[in-house]
């Protein structure tokens, strides 16, 4: 494999079944490592370790690069129209299947904090599903989105286009804390 180290990100290729399975597992692992390290970075900041926080953030970013490379080889990156459709499909699965089932189990088992975390996510995924749907339709008609900011509640993930509400309708966090993109 002498030519395996050219200076380009890896590309999609026809994969053996076992390699495909392994890459999927590696994508899952890198994605989760990245999120763990971001959470650890926030904790390090809170404990007064700004330099360890920076290390966690940088390594989280490195894991993101690995995740992107694995996803690329898996053929998981299409054009934007296809990506919007894939994103819509993922949100739809979470809304119709995954989170309602998890929510029911959390209620059954009386795990209130788990229930909160699950309901925050379920509620936001509905925002995402609607936004991906309208964005995909706009793109089909030849239009990019408007340049209105997209705002995200840093507590529950509630997502709105345009102005932040006075108070998050899902978790009650004041709108001034929303993160604007």
């Amino acid at each position, binding site marked *: 494999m002498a030519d*395996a*180290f*050219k*200076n*380009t990100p*890896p590309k999609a290729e026809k*994969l053996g079944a*076992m390699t495909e399975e*392994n*890459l999927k*597992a590696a994508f*899952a692992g*890198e*994605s*989760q490592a*990245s*999120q763990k390290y*971001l*959470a650890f*970075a*926030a904790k390090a900041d*809170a*404990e007064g370790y700004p*330099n*360890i926080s*920076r290390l966690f953030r940088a*390594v989280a970013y*490195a*894991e*993101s*690069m690995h995740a992107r*490379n694995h*996803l*690329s*080889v898996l053929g998981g990156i299409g*054009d*934007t129209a296809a990506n919007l459709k894939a*994103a819509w499909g993922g949100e739809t699965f979470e809304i119709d299947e*995954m989170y309602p089932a998890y929510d029911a*189990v*959390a209620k059954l*088992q*009386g*795990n*209130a*904090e*788990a229930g909160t*975390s*699950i309901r925050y*996510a379920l509620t936001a995924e509905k925002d*995402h599903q609607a936004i991906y749907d309208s964005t995909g339709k706009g793109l089909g008609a030849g239009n*990019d989105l408007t*340049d209105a*900011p*997209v705002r*995200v509640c*840093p507590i529950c*993930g509630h*997502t709105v286009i345009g102005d932040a509400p006075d108070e998050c309708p899902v978790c009650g966090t004041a709108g001034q804390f929303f993160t604007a*993109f």
Partner: protein
Amino acid sequence: MSDGETSVLGELEHRLPRPDALHAMDLADLKAAFAGESQAAERYLVFAEQAAAEGLPHVATLFRAISFAETRHARNHFRVMAGIGATADNLQTAFEGESFEIDEMYPAYVEVARLQGDRQAFKSLHWALKAEVDHKRMYAEARETVLAGGDIAEQQVSVCQVCGHTVVGDVPDKCPVCAAPGSAYRTFS
């Protein structure tokens, strides 16, 4: 990226879901949900790059924003699972994760990719394995420093945006793993 995280968490932390004594099925569900949110966040970041490359900057912004929302969900699930400890413990957790990938996961995956002749997969897996070795060492050193009572030195950390090679201090002229130029590094300072 969770750049908004540190600026607001102090004031708002009491609003987040807390660690819970979880039943086994709830724990299994939250683990699966954490895996799903983490992967969605990464996918959307990649989709944002693709949208930007297609001249759709606002769709790119949307993907980045929703990626951030998914990271909030991932963090919430992770908190409820009691995944976040003190920094010394978090460094140990990170060290163990990197060790597993270096000693077990990636060597097996790299070998299978070689066996099956999947060159692009080999490259992607090999690059990751290389970087995890650096990460493991950095986490071990950082943990020692914390246990001795201090933060690590204030030095920039840079990441190759092609292969994920991670370096503390000066950026090399050329990435030693994938040969990308030094300009391909993103610096955290």
